[in-house]
């Protein structure tokens, strides 16, 4: 059977070079980097090399600004909670966008339980935050603005450099969740003008369990993991050296290959973004067509629900994700699509294809061939579709937006 993996945002395979770089730290060089004896030397050196590699990927001023964590989620929790709590005396107001990842969303809810107030900035139908809205949301007691670099569900890349002009002027700490962008598109913390940035290794073929938070020198943060002196006292716990080494190596390779990868993935992506709506009626591309992640194609297929498509695609050897209700804890439509103005019905039909460096144009041809009968079949079963078909012509416009 044909196998086409198009779910790289859920999990990506390790690069062989990354795997190789990790191997010694799973075997011979098992020591603790804090150890003063010889067994500590190799892991300590490797740790600092990985820190430099990771810093280089995002143009950080100094490797010491990198704090290794265990996931994008941990980095986001650390940033939202740690940056706010460090400024308790200044105020208790946080600004986020309406389409943040759950790890930011639920972290601010945690802060809300501690007495913080949250303002959620809206997005337009393509998923963009308007910097003016951020400006309006900022209050004298605002301590943190957290707006993601790109959304994993719809791929829209935010105008961070414009937003940071405002946060700089108002002297407010600006964090961005760049888990979806780091290693995939060029990310430079100076150009973006942010003060803190979350990244994770797996999106650019590093290991799971590897991630980092970058915090600009001079910005105070409280630890999320209290304890020993690892990571300069900012993140306690014995370091997972192999994962960290893998992150460093993946960062090094990503930096080297960024432009090539981007071009290739953008081409493949556009085959699908252009192909699917031309093959199947009433398919909406979600997110922006230009300012979007390479290798990221997201759709809403009207009248049907995402999981069914996902499962039928799987039966044809194709792996994708759906942002639809059944795949997440809350059986509700994606908060991202709702915030962009889609109604629940449309939002339930979301489908997400994320391509990786091993994908080829033929993979997209295959998908474009198997998709139409799948959609037909599910529409045949859909009460929503029968209503649409029976409705008087012109009675329903594009139900999407």
């Amino acid at each position, binding site marked *: 059977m044909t196998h086409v993996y198009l779910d790289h945002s859920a999990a990506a395979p390790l690069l062989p070079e990354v795997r190789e770089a990790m191997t010694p730290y799973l075997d011979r060089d098992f020591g603790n980097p804090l150890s003063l004896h010889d067994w500590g030397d190799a892991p300590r050196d490797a740790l600092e090399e990985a820190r430099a590699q990771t810093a280089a990927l995002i143009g950080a001023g100094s490797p010491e600004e990198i704090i290794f964590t265990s996931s994008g989620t941990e980095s986001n929790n650390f940033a939202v909670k740690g940056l706010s709590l460090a400024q308790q005396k200044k105020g208790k107001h946080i*600004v986020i966008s*309406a389409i943040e990842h*759950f790890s930011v969303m*639920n972290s*601010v*809810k*945690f802060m*809300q*339980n501690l007495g913080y107030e*949250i*303002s*959620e*900035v*809206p997005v337009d139908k393509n998923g963009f935050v308007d910097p003016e*809205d951020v400006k*309006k*949301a900022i209050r004298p007691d605002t301590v943190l603005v957290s707006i993601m670099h790109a959304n994993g569900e719809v791929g829209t890349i935010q105008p961070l450099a414009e937003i940071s002009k405002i946060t700089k002027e108002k002297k407010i700490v600006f964090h961005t969740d760049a888990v979806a962008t780091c290693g995939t598109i060029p990310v430079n913390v100076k150009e973006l003008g942010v003060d803190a940035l979350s990244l994770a290794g797996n999106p650019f073929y590093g290991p799971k369990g590897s991630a980092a938070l970058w915090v600009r020198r001079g910005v105070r943060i409280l630890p999320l993991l209290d304890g020993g002196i690892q990571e300069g006292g900012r993140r306690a716990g014995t370091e997972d050296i192999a994962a960290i080494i893998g992150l460093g190596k993946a960062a090094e390779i990503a930096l080297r290959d960024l432009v090539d990868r981007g071009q290739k993935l953008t081409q493949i992506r556009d085959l699908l973004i252009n192909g699917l709506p031309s093959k199947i009626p009433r398919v909406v591309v979600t997110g922006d067509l230009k300012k979007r992640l390479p290798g990221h194609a997201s759709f809403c297929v009207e*009248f*049907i*629900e*995402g*999981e*069914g498509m996902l*499962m039928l695609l799987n*039966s044809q050897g194709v792996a994708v994700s759906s942002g*639809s*209700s*059944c795949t*997440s*804890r*809350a*059986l*509700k*439509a994606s908060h991202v699509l709702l915030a962009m103005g889609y*109604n*629940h*019905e449309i939002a*339930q039909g979301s489908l997400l294809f994320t391509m990786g460096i091993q994908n080829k144009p033929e993979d997209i041809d295959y998908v474009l061939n198997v998709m139409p009968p799948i959609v037909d079949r599910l529409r*045949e*079963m*859909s*009460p*929503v*579709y*029968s209503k649409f078909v029976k409705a008087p012509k012109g009675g329903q416009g594009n139900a999407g937006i």
Partner: protein
Amino acid sequence: MPVYSEKVMDHFMHPRNVGEIENADGVGEVGNPVCGDMMTFYIKVKDNRLEDVKYKTFGCGAAIAVSSMVSEMAKGATIEEAQKITPESVAKMLEGLPKQKFHCSNLGAQALNKAIDDYLAKTGKLKADPAKCCPFCDHEDSENDPVCQQGCPVNQPEIKSP
């Protein structure tokens, strides 16, 4: 192990009795897109038996398999037998459903009963409760649950837009 049992997969891949019945004796619709799943059941009754059962379903794999299984269980049954079909008995026939699918996708029995009620009402009888679908589940929220419910929107404070 796949998320769904073989039986669920069989009914999802080969759903039985899909369709509508023209001039049905009873129609029952439950769910809505906010909730995630919608089912419309159609029944044809003859001599107190469900001579024909058809449905249309908007929803996840579980919702489709549930509809199909319910239609099989109901077809040919008496009204009284069909009324005894419950979410539990459907899940059992399907060799289990993932915990988080049990609540919301298991609307088939409800939709069938609504269709039966519709038929009974037309011929003169009982009134049914409105369909009640948990919009938040994915996790049972009982007192004894060791799990924090923080992640569940139902326990979350509202966030206001500026």
